[in-house]
């Protein structure tokens, strides 16, 4: 079926993708700069068309637990929020990971810490990829850099979430959430019927038929020996994701002597900085991270053997740069540049940082 062209905000694209991807339920709480996700859903009223449930909860704590419940019953459920709200959801995220439940969580990041600001930021990287909640767990973390990717990653998110029975986070930022761009949307994928749900999620607690044992969804095992085995299983799953599910993009890297490593909005800005640099004769390329966990360790290691230096560009005081350094293992200089607290760096600032921190180094 032909694709349809639309003009939308990133947040609206998330909502549109939810409806078109066969999502069963969205549970959220308003917070800037992502409130358009729920607003768009409430305007569209998908419960009258696809049967999708949309509910405004009393808090982010409640939203994520509604997601936990829906996921435990085998439904395709999601929530979205921004940084302070995502902090409140950490309890639910670790329970989702522990109980191995598929779910989709969108974080349209704003500046912190605390109530911070409502402007774009990338300072929730650690929280997204290093756990955030308690215990040894990982989410699959996707970093969209356009409105189109906000849309596309909802579909990809369901695929990964159900394949691995694991929560997936779309780590966006206030710029990608608020910017309007054109995007192509595809036809509606129908929601699963109950028969399909029972086939695709036989583990789900959605009512016990006479011919099977009762299903139990829990992250609890009071027997530590069993809990350790459960942890082994989780770790094996995360290693498999690292093996099979890494996504990235390389731009102008063929002849590059220097590499920007960036994701989301910063990757867009770095692309402009590449253009400015090349005009000055600086051979610079971009490694754009699409998955933040699993991190493209191998690709960073490869580049570290070839280039004269890498600049991690992110709207934070330096978070992703730690993973770049770990993967580069001191084979080349790795520096960080970024404005933060809600300030977006300019392409000129990015290029200048490359010249000062790496080239003159």
């Amino acid at each position, binding site marked *: 079926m032909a694709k349809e062209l639309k003009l939308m905000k990133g947040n609206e694209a998330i909502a549109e993708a939810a409806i078109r991807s066969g999502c069963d339920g969205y549970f959220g709480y308003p917070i800037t700069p992502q409130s358009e996700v729920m607003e768009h859903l409430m305007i569209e009223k998908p419960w009258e068309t696809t049967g999708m449930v949309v509910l405004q909860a009393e808090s982010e704590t409640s939203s994520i637990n509604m997601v936990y*419940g829906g996921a435990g019953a085998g439904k395709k459920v999601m929530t979205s929020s921004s940084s302070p709200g995502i902090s409140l959801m950490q309890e639910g995220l670790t329970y989702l990971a522990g109980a191995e439940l598929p779910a989709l969580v969108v974080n349209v990041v704003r500046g912190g810490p605390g109530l911070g600001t409502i402007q774009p930021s990338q300072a929730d990287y650690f929280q997204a990829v290093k756990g955030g909640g308690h215990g040894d767990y990982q989410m699959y973390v996707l970093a969209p850099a356009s409105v189109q990717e906000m849309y596309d990653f909802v579909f990809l998110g369901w695929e990964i979430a159900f394949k691995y029975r694991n929560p997936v986070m779309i780590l966006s930022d206030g710029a990608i959430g608020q910017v309007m761009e054109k995007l192509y949307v595809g036809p509606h994928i129908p929601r699963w019927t109950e028969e399909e749900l029972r086939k695709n999620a036989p583990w789900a607690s959605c*009512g*016990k038929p006479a011919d099977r044992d*009762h299903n*139990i969804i829990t992250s609890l095992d009071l027997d530590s020996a069993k809990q350790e085995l459960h942890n082994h299983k989780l770790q094996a799953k995360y290693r498999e994701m690292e093996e099979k599910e890494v996504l990235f993009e390389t731009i102008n890297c063929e002849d590059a002597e220097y590499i920007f490593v960036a994701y989301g909005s910063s990757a867009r800005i770095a692309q402009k900085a590449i253009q400015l640099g090349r005009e000055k004769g600086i051979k610079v390329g971009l490694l754009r991270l699409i998955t933040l966990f699993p991190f493209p360790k191998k690709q960073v290691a490869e580049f570290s053997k070839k280039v004269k230096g890498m600049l991690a560009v992110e709207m934070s005081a330096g978070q992703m740069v730690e993973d770049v350094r770990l993967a580069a293992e001191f084979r080349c200089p790795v520096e960080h540049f970024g404005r933060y607290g809600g300030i977006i760096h300019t392409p000129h600032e990015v290029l200048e940082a490359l010249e000062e921190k790496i080239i003159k180094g």
Partner: protein
Amino acid sequence: MFNPDIIKPENLVYEKTNVLTDAVMHYCAGCGHGTTHRIVAEVIEEMGIQDKAICIAPVGCSVLAYNYFNVDAIGAAHGRAPAIATAIQRMFPDRHTFTYQGDGDLAAIGTAETIHACNRGENIVIIFINNGIYGMTGGQMAPTTLLGMKTATSPYGRTVELNGYPLQITELLAELPGTYYITRQSVHTAAAVRRTKKAIRQAFENQKNKKGTSLVEVVSNCNSGWKMTPVEANKWMVENMFVKYPIGDIKVDGEKVKK
């Protein structure tokens, strides 16, 4: 005297419902949890809704309720069961999603989830065990602990100055228009068990008829937490807990019961 010859179908006077598993319960002897589990399971069996029942287990003494109820189940984070039940019941409107929660879970850490699920009138059943103490963690003060009552975190007795008043959350929930049926029962005598069973049946029937939120509070002893024998604990419960938490219907068919 054990006489194997009398084990015959025609001599059977009582049988464990198959809505309870064969797992050995971990509850203390004399505690109300085991009895309440049985009542809930029997109601599910009698209504023929085992395939539609989904249990949301709490954090607290009944954290392992999912091992005992032979129905699909989900273990909640502490206090979050009503939010979990909300989502499931909304996406599966023909199911019987019920939460099973203690006083710490429902009336302290989960107060917001409880009040808002009830206020939205979610079509769920809430079974609420109130024993005035945190049993599983070793007998600490609960929101429902009585004034003067000694616990591990109120070792000289609960005082208003230090701890505030015991929370009558059930009366509070009855004020919300979303709640349809609110009752307080107990399971310390055969007659009380029969009344509780009737109440729990009513709650699940309301859910079947999509009436909104039904909550059955069961005032129970916690003999180990109260440091009494089960018999002493039941006596103390009647003389003290029932004064603050009087037994009876609070709201029926969406109308508050006139006292």
